[in-house]
């Protein structure tokens, strides 16, 4: 078989490199019986359409940002809920709790998750050090989803919608003054051109997920299925390691380019936790039973 597989991010992203390795592993393990061709950077299907394209079997498999689906069910978005899981260990524990629920939800759309890999934890970019949440008050704050908008509002900041590609310009023109994003995005947008301080507050650890269409998968021979699942398990382990390495490397790169990297103060952490708790309460009010069960399992 030959699979066309769309991914949203570019070839130099570690997620893409991990998937390329996954495709190689599958090709090797099946002696070329299953040949996966990657179409990176949204070149085949735009990011927003990838999940549905796999669902309707336009492509057998694809990758997307998991919490994009949180409007479908809040269970998909728990990993982007601020300050629920703030380290790789916690993120792993959260994924263990989230995976069975997400698997069941995706099954309703005929999709099977193969593996999921996190982005580096999200840190705070500002000009000048932020000692307490009160320092965020009145700042124009980049928000690209509902959770961040709520976060900014609770922190007393003004949420502003800015796309990733427009970050440098938005900062240099004063359209925004603060953002929370991964050190990877910080390096890619050369954050040192427009901010002075970075704090790894590890607000959340969002993930990408790779899914395959159930019916396409079922048609594979048992050997090929086993090979795909084995390669997927390896890719998940490898991906988490790559992510941790990426977090260290990119944070170091921020520092090397002159950004002051500082650990968040106890007061800031406490303040952020307060916002996180309020947001989680709101989240619980809207969450499905399945989504709530993730939280129960995770918090045990």
């Amino acid at each position: 078989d030959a699979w066309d597989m769309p991914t949203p991010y570019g070839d130099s992203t570690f997620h893409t490199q991990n998937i390329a390795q996954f495709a190689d592993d599958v090709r090797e393990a099946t002696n070329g019986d299953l040949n996966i061709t990657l179409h990176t950077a949204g070149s085949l299907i735009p990011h927003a359409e990838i999940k549905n394209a796999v669902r309707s079997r336009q492509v057998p498999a694809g990758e997307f940002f998991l919490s994009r689906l949180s409007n479908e069910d809040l269970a998909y978005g728990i990993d982007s809920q601020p300050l629920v899981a703030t380290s790789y260990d916690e993120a792993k524990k959260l994924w263990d709790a989230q995976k069975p629920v997400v698997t069941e939800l995706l099954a309703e759309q005929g999709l099977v998750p193969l593996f999921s890999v996190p982005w580096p934890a999200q840190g705070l970019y500002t000009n000048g050090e932020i000692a307490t949440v009160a320092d965020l008050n009145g700042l124009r704050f980049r928000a690209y989803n509902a959770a961040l908008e709520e976060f900014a509002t609770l922190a007393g900041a003004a949420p502003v919608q800015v796309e990733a590609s427009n970050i440098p310009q938005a900062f240099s023109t004063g359209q925004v003054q603060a953002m929370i994003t991964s050190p990877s995005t910080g390096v890619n947008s050369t954050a040192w051109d427009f901010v002075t301080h970075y704090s790894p507050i590890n607000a959340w650890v969002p993930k990408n997920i790779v899914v395959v269409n159930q019916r396409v998968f079922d048609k594979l021979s048992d050997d090929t299925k086993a090979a795909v699942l084995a390669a997927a398990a390896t890719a998940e382990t490898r991906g988490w390691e790559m992510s941790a390495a990426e977090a260290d490397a990119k944070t170091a790169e921020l520092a090397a380019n002159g950004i002051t990297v500082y650990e968040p103060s106890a007061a800031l952490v406490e303040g952020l936790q307060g916002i996180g708790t309020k947001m989680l309460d709101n989240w619980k009010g809207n969450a499905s039973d399945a989504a709530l069960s993730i939280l129960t399992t995770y918090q045990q």
Partner: protein
Amino acid sequence: MADPLIALVLLGLLLLCLAAGLWVALSLGAVALVALLTFSNAPAGLVLATTFWGHSHSWALTALPLFILMGEILLRSRLSNDMFSGLAPWLGRAPGRLLHVNVFGCAIFAAVSGSSAATAATIGRMSVPELTKRGYPQSLILGTLAGSATLGLLIPPSIILIVYGVATEQSIARLFIAGVLPGVMLITLFAGYVAVRAWMNPELIPQEAKQFSFVERIKASRNLIPVALLIIGVIGSIYTGLASPTDAAALGVVLATLLAWLSGGFSWKLFMDALLSATRTSCMIAFILLGAAYLSVAMGFTGLPRNLATWIAEMNLSAPMLLFALTIFFIILGCFLDGISVVVLTTSIIMPMIAAVGIDPLWFGIYLVIVVEMSQITPPVGFNLFVIQGMTGINILEVAKAAFPFFLLLLVGVGLIAVFPQIVTYLPELMSR
């Protein structure tokens, strides 16, 4: 069937459809459909619906109808007329006279808009009727417009540099800065070409009716105030952070309407005319973009451009030879696909080749944009040609002929940045310090 044969068959089919007078958007779509049905296993119909849907609601595209509307409003108001009467006294002695309005008008508008089609539509809407009325030769009017409008891609903001930056993880801010000097270089080349043509053939350029004294020039310049306010307002809103580059298009419409109304002679009826005309033009362009997107996706599924790029990769060329081969490859591909498709379809294969021979990816991004600029004016699929045909009714082949010197000038530009890479890298390096 072998790849080169498939490519030839599809090419022949595209030319046949276009020659038979099938609408451009539908010709692209029909060829894509045949390619998918014949040479891939993808479900062509579902992919068609996904592509039409996925590419029709993009935020970056929303600026296009708004900029076109701005051009339509300016055309119907006194502003465009005023602009030419304000500029005429100043350009009266310059070789090429008001033709430079096309070059510099496009260059200024390129600093507002990230797309070359919007640049051609907005500037051309005003300049083509005015220059034709004043007796300038058609080929130079169309050529300068088609050629200079491609600057929309290179001078920041630029949609294609964002696409390239996202796909290759280059800093978009640095890419934008890197585009500035090459942009100035191309403006100089274009303006220089117009001047040389005018020198060689003085009778080509109509005389301005009278000579102006300095005081008269200053007086006439008052006519430029409204347009200057418009440009300052739009560019200013971007650089003060009040508006994103896409937002700025809406501001352009509001300001143009306001100024048109204040300067008199503008009416509700003219506004409705402008709006309906903009609706038709942007529908035409968007439909072609959708057809082109479907063809691009079909090429992704059949793997043709990828295989061609791999074929070049396997030649293991040296850096200069690789650039030479790639330039030819991109020019050929650019005749049949739109520029952005060329970039997204081939970066996965091309970027490792670039890295292997040690070419700076930042430099390569600018190189790529200039090559893609060429694709905007090469037939049969060239967006500036489509926009100008839609605007003037003059056939794209004729427009392409008029634009051919500018294609060559862009090629000269590529040669210059290859020989003097500092043109690209100087400003970004300054930024790093």
